[in-house]
């Protein structure tokens, strides 16, 4: 407990120093920021975009945009949260193209089955559910999709989500409500009835 409390300020200081170097356009600082936070950004990107390649492109865009974007960083959230906000701002194009690609593949009936034919049945069902949810998310407006991924998949508290998206909490809750309603309907219509 004491150790954790002692580490917190030093971690904050380290992050503060990193942000200062980012603001000074130090290229090595971008590499450090990437090493520290690419996992979180990638996970969010994959959940939001639903496509690994598009998610990698989004991760790339986030860190390339970081030197400019960091000028807006005020330090009231962590750098990781700030990076998620940058990802949200850059996601529109990637979500749209990934969604289009999925729709095209589906139309051509060439959507590959999720890997894991030899896995136990519940693993396969879980993977299919994740794919089905991604497809259902494609039917949502980006704002509702982002709210759902941040609140439900990433389990972030609504004040943090509101800060990331830059809207009031009430708006986040409203978007989440509509997103869930549509997703329930979409899943119910699918193969998992």
């Amino acid at each position, binding site marked *: 407990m004491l150790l954790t409390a002692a580490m917190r300020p030093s971690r904050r200081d380290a992050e503060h120093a990193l942000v200062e170097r980012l603001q000074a356009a130090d*290229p090595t600082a971008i590499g450090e920021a990437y090493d520290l936070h690419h996992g979180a950004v990638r996970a969010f990107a994959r959940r939001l975009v639903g496509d690994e390649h598009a998610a*990698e492109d989004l991760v790339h865009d986030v860190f390339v945009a970081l030197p400019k974007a960091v000028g807006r960083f005020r330090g009231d959230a962590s750098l990781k949260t700030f990076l998620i906000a940058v990802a949200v701002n850059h996601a529109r194009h990637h979500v749209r193209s990934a969604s289009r690609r999925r729709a095209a593949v589906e139309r051509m009936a060439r959507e590959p089955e999720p890997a894991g034919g030899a896995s136990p049945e519940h693993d396969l069902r*879980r993977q299919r559910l994740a794919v089905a949810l991604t497809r259902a998310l494609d039917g949502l407006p980006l704002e509702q999709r982002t709210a759902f991924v941040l609140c439900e998949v990433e389990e972030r508290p609504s004040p943090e989500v509101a800060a990331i998206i830059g809207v009031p909490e009430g708006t986040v809750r409203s978007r989440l409500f509509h997103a869930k309603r549509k997703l329930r309907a979409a899943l119910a219509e699918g193969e998992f009835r």
Partner: protein
Amino acid sequence: MNDDLLREATRAMRESTTDETGESPAAEFTRERVMRSVHGARRTRLSKTVVVVPLVAVLLGTTAAAAATGSLPSVVQSALQAIGLVEPPEASTTDPAASQGPATTPRSATANDLGDPSTAAAEPAIDPAPTSDTEATATSDATLPSSAPPRASAPPSPAASARNAADKLYRKAHQLHFGQRDYSSALSAWNAYLQAAPRGRFAAEAAYNRGICFARLGRRAEAKRALAPFADGRYGGYRQTEARALVQALGR
């Protein structure tokens, strides 16, 4: 039931896309891409700074100096010529000595500019006067001298006043010749300009256009006399090729 399904799907998505902070080929590849892009953007910014800033500084300095010395139109013309937006110089921007001397660098004439002199000779009824391409003029108003004094702050010197008066005459002659195509009036105007500024900035151009006016008016002998100095190279290479072709055509 639906809630359970959504919760299960959400959990499935969460677990299938975990927050992997470890190294993976994709993460490594993306890291390399990021660093390449960042360095590339940095290099682009740097080269822009190294190239663009001095260029802008030189441009501003030149413009300021040109504005201060009253030669801004000439500088603008030169710049436009350098980037190929206007035709090459036709003596309008040279100083009097250069425009009269052999150092003048005229646009090289081509057969297309001149038309075919042999055709003119074969058909004597055709006006041997050249097309407007062969007439010595600037194609844009930017080449025309400005009648406004270059610096309003200081009273114009007598020399400047004389130059302004000559420039006005030039503008009038230019307008009559190329705007109204009134060659009779243009001839008088070119004569007036040459009388006012026999060694003026546009003297060579005016003398050449005077010859063209004679040709347009069918006064062949006078046209030949006016163009002969150009054909003989007394104005250096200025309009020499065109003048030779015209003199030859007029002589037939």
